[in-house]
């Protein structure tokens, strides 16, 4: 028997109750993601991509249906358990990099490690992760504001990978970069995927989606392809 899927959605529904009436953002979404996949999620604005990403990242809970991360059902988990799940099994990469301005590059990268170990960590592990994303050693002690957008996104990738997550969730990872820098980041993602990292990426850019090996197209809260 092989590894269980790293992520399973079973008939997931997400409804936002609003004063003007309920809005169904996801309507019976089911899919699974196997280890080592590189999936892009595409769809027009308002189709439910962000809602799907939030549910995959355990940042939100479904109205109905079940979500499994690495075989663990998330529906009955407490906030503490979900936080631990995000910390240990999911890596996040955001469009706007979202590094911590008060910490230098090494500290940003090792931050999730410190959360996990609850003590000081070996900065050499951070350096190794930064070298993996091809960031120059001379930048390690700089603050995020002192480096370029592309370099910041590489740091964000290193931070997302530092705890060896089961899944890398990327929200428009090249959305705030020029095309050349964006291509460099996507090459990096492809390389990571080739080494075994499971990647799920939300994008509206078909050129970026080409880097993935499977595309989930979503419209009106339903998977259409």
């Amino acid at each position, binding site marked *: 028997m092989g590894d269980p899927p790293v992520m399973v959605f079973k008939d997931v529904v997400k409804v936002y109750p609003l004063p003007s009436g309920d809005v169904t953002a996801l309507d019976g979404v089911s899919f699974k993601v196997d280890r080592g996949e590189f999936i892009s999620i595409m769809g027009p604005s308002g189709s439910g991509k962000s809602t799907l990403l939030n549910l995959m990242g355990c940042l939100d809970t479904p109205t109905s249906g079940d979500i499994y991360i690495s075989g663990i059902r998330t529906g009955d988990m407490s906030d503490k358990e979900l936080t631990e799940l995000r*910390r240990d099994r999911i890596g996040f990469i955001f469009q706007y990099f979202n590094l911590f301005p008060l910490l230098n590059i090494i*500290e940003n990268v090792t931050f999730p490690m410190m*959360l996990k170990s609850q003590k000081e960590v070996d900065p050499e592990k951070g350096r190794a992760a930064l070298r993996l994303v091809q960031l120059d050693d001379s930048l390690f002690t700089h603050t995020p504001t002192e480096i370029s957008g592309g370099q910041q996104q590489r740091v964000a990738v290193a931070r997302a990978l530092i705890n060896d997550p089961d899944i890398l969730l990327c929200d428009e990872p090249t959305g705030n970069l020029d095309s050349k820098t964006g291509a460099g980041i996507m090459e990096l993602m492809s390389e990571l995927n080739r080494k075994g990292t499971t990647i799920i990426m939300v994008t509206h850019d078909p050129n970026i989606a080409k880097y993935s090996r499977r595309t989930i197209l979503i419209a009106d809260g339903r998977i259409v392809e």
Partner: protein
Amino acid sequence: MIFWEIAKRNLRIHLLRSTLAMLGIVIGVVAIASMGILGNTLVLSVSDSLHTVGDSVIVSPYTGGGSGFRQGGGVGSTSLKITDQQYQQIKRAVAPNIAIPVLQTSDIMKLGVGSDTIVAPIYGLNPDDVPNLMKLKAGSYSRSDSGILVGSTFATDHNVNVGSRISIGTDGDKGTLRVTGIIEERGISFDISTDSAVVVTQNWFDTTYNRIDYDTVVVKVDQGVDSAVVKTTIEKQMNKRDKVVSVMDSKATLATIFTAFGAITTFVTAIGGISMIVAGVSIFNIMMMSVSERIKEIGIMRSIGTQKREVMSMFIYEAAILGVIGSVIGGVLSIIAGYGVSALLLNTTKYLFVWSSAIPIIEGVCFGIIISLACGVYPAWKAANLIPIEAMRHE
């Protein structure tokens, strides 16, 4: 300890507002501690002045009734008196404690040829009782009717020494007495105030002023005896049918005075506490600002696996740093402020470096830290309970 580091760095990059918030705590601690020091100094100062009379029960005629008392003689004296018979009753009732009858008047006196005449209180005491009531700083107790003791202030003010002569009465018609001793300063007292007075023998007083009744009876309560019991004994004995004497327990009176001083100290310290509350509001304000400015950062932290308690700790650390540094600086400055206030208002700083003066400083510092932490709790709780998705969307 990454959250401790983040807290420190956040305060450092907002140095001005952090310093201002800290300044509020400094002022609050100084206000509380220096008021506490002032109150403590006041209590110690009064306690020092009064502790020698804390073992007395003073019996005086009841001025509201008056039956059973004769009108006394003496210059200008029209008050009620305690008869010798009543004195004997008091003496028996309080034995083995010593009951000392006191005669009192005031008269004109001249301190030497060519000097001005003055008017001063005169106490008449049995020579055997004098050592029980007062100590001398110079000379000796006199058993002779021709001897006189003078109070320390009296001696200083009028340049009187042992051996000086004092003529009493207009043109010295009541006699001239020789100073045999100078009484040690007694300060404020409930029984007799000798600092600016003179003390003669009871015999001379009786003969000169034709007095046989007493103004007061001072009962010196032995160590280990409850003065309240002595007071009750006298009242039961003397005020059986009518109230003929008033009895004052100096220890109880002292306790009342100290209670009053304690209340005053608490009141002024509470006023100082208002500034601490204001400082706390300032801390609360900058902590709320800090949370508002970092909502997105908190959202990111939560999304990548930071627990609520860790977010909370980060803001509590900020409040703690402000509180501890501000309070410690305030504590140090309050010693200086306490020194200044004591020197200025009480003309003494000798009570500053005693343990009881350290207590208001410790209380002020602790209060500063507690207020800072308390004012940091709600902003920290608010930060910790932000919904990660909403926090990340915040711009």
